[in-house]
């Protein structure tokens, strides 16, 4: 259980996290979603006591992180892959980390096996690929068998097998009743892994709901129609609550009418249809809609016409 109350972090003039209040509950995978610079990483760093909140507070399992007598057994965190001395071997890194809590070599070997690092455990971390670094970070997070796991972009740099493994691992750990918080800017990944999503935009919590709600709420269902007589069809469909946009000369995106109705209108007027598809909103669209005004770093599109 992670509880944030009006959590705020300012760096000079810039507000990285702005009065964020949210609760991450056990038994679920909770996703922290947001564009770059939205405050996800800063929030995670404040949860584990690395950054001091400017105001507000965040508690883990009922206590401030620093109050725990065995922090590694309470919270395991993977913040960034490079939180490891590059000159030390993976094995020695985990051994030194565990030693603080009296965790011995047996558990170290166990997490090395669990994350598939057996072959490279004796090698210096400096030579690790991004994926191996992530695995080692996950191994370190699991070392204390913690009740709460915090993972910042855990699948970054992992191969497809590793991605599947992380997804399975997180779901499994959540099913054991643990609290799982992971961040990502990949909406598709969140849709597959998370049960609940907290969306951040410019440091503020702009949505906090189950995945299904976010998709349902933010996305509009529309129908894509392709017809050589598109213009006439558009005229026939015109109504106050119907929105017709033309994607290209012969293709229409219609919102507010079902595909069946459109098909009926076309048939009764003798119009030819080449395509008639219901387009359901994705988490990605919902997310883009939610964060449209909250993106800190806007990109200039190279070919504006292509962007919907």
């Amino acid at each position, binding site marked *: 259980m992670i509880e944030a109350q009006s959590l705020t972090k300012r760096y000079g003039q810039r507000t990285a996290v702005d009065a964020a209040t949210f609760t991450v509950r056990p038994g679920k995978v909770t996703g922290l979603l947001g564009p770059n610079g939205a405050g996800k990483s800063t929030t995670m760093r404040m949860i584990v006591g690395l950054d001091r909140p400017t105001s507000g507070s965040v508690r883990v399992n009922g206590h401030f992180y620093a109050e725990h*007598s065995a922090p590694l057994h309470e919270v395991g965190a993977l913040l*960034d892959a490079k939180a*490891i001395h590059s000159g030390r071997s993976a094995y*020695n890194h985990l051994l030194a*980390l565990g*030693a603080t809590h009296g965790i011995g070599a047996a558990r170290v070997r*166990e997490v090395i096996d669990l994350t598939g690092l*057996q072959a490279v455990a004796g090698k210096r971390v400096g030579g690790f690929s991004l994926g191996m670094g992530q695995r080692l970070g996950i191994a370190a997070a699991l070392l204390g068998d913690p009740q709460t796991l915090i993972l910042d972009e855990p699948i970054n740099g992992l191969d497809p097998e590793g991605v599947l493994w992380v997804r399975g691992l997180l779901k499994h750990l959540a099913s054991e009743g643990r609290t799982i918080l992971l961040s990502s800017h990949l909406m598709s990944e969140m849709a597959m892994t998370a049960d609940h999503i907290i969306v951040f935009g410019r440091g503020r919590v702009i949505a906090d709901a189950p995945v299904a709600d976010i998709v349902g709420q933010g996305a509009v269902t529309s129908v894509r129609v392709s017809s050589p007589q598109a213009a006439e069809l558009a005229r026939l469909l015109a109504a106050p609550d119907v929105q017709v946009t033309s994607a290209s000369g012969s293709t229409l995106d219609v919102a507010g009418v079902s595909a069946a109705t459109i098909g009926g209108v076309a048939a009764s007027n003798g119009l030819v249809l080449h395509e008639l598809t219901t387009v359901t909103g994705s988490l990605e669209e919902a997310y883009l809609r939610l964060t449209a005004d909250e993106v800190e770093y806007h990109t200039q599109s190279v070919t504006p016409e292509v962007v919907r």
Partner: protein
Amino acid sequence: MSTLAQPALARSSHIDASNRGLSATGILRSEWIKLRSLRSTWWSFSIIVLIQVGIAVLFALTTSPMATEPTTQQVTQAAVSISTLGVLFSQLVIAVLGVLVISGEYSTGQIRSSFMAVPNRLPVLAAKALVFAVATFVVSLVAIVVSYVVTMPILAGNGVDAAPLEPSLWLSFFGAAGYLVFIGLISLGIGAALRSTPGGIAASLGLLLVVPTIFQLIPAEWAGVVASWLPGTAGQSLYYTGSTFEPWQALLVMLGWVAVTLIPAAVLMKRRDA
């Protein structure tokens, strides 16, 4: 990548429920593992032993007997000088290592792992300082004693009187090893406050090499006094008799320098975002 174990293994049977939690001995053990698992440690300590013994041997080979019969004190002084001559060089190695021990954690991001495991942070600094101090003391003492053991027969062969390994000699050897420990701890404090390897090394070597020269060049009496209180100068009174300070005074001066660097470093470490 090799096969991955089943997630079910995540829950461990290897964590002893009775032994859960942070402990001082655990943090000390952790810092010892960290120190011994880096190549820079072994390189630095090897260089110290090699350089100390090498310089002592070179010096012993070129030493000729005094014109007059030396006093017992002169014989002891000569043995101390020769056995600890390398300290002037190894202090630079120790200063660099002292900075690296902490700045290496900041430059690689390791410090975040360390602070997540020990969120109160200060035990990390304390354990690091203690482990580094003990290791430095042992290695330095070994280097000095080996220098003595190797050079005495050479000196005897040159017709120079060799001092027996008596308590006063041991005291000087402890003093010289202690001097290196103090230099290491001052550098550790500088490294922890600056959090940067190049900055920390520049500052600690500057304190040892550049700052004394500057004060010696200033033609004022106060400048000479300041120069004598600097760690690199005052510290030599720990093992050379007849220097500015008595050994116990030098000890206090060096403890003062350690406090002046480590205490602000500790305050900053506690306050700053990692």
